[in-house]
């Protein structure tokens, strides 16, 4: 099963944005952002694109999948 890797935390820190602010911007709960940052939740394409838009990046910049060894 490929593992979700995310650079969400880096992007958020670069924008000096709180988890709650990002959650509000993309219309999800803070818990969802926490799990996304830990790679414990695979976002829908819509949510991934909304997050990418917030940071002015592409979805692939923020989210990627790593194959298991």
């Amino acid at each position, binding site marked *: 099963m490929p593992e979700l890797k995310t650079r969400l935390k880096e992007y958020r820190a670069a924008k000096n944005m709180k988890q709650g602010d990002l959650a509000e*911007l993309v*219309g999800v709960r803070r*818990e969802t952002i926490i*799990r996304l940052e830990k790679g414990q939740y695979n976002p829908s394409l819509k949510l991934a694109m*909304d997050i990418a838009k*917030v940071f002015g990046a592409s979805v692939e910049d923020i989210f990627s999948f790593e194959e298991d060894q």
Partner: protein
Amino acid sequence: MNNKAVSPEALRPSYKNDRRRPICLRRHEKYTAVTEGFAALICIYTVLGDLFHVKDKDDPIEIAVFLILMFGMFVSGFIWTMNLAAYKAEPHDEMSAQIKGRANGTAFFLWYALVMVSVFVLEMIKKGSVSQILTLGNFYMLSVGGLLIYDAIRRFVFLVMDRPDKPDDSEE
């Protein structure tokens, strides 16, 4: 899905227009589950009371237990309704909707197991008690109690599944 747009102005219009502060989904689920739990216990207690204490309606212990359950239901219900009046309930997002779906399935198995265990225990205590409970008079309270218990279990399972693994240290 609530993530309809990125812009805060366009985001969740009905939610945004409500000027009340939001109450987080987890807290809302907790209040609802506890209130439902008390209400369900009252229904079940009434059914079991009819079964085991038909001639002891004036038993002070029975009255005390009933009063405690009623008091618990009113207090938790009062807190629940006051919170709903003061805050707006946070809507489900895609992750919570997904978890809620999983919680439904798990809750059904837990509820079914609880029903089965209750049936066996009741039959062991008093033979024929289950068919006695399933009379028309008791059946209404039993169905309401059963539904409330299922919903309370569903919400508790959701809260367990939705709980973050450990406190997040990254939040400012």
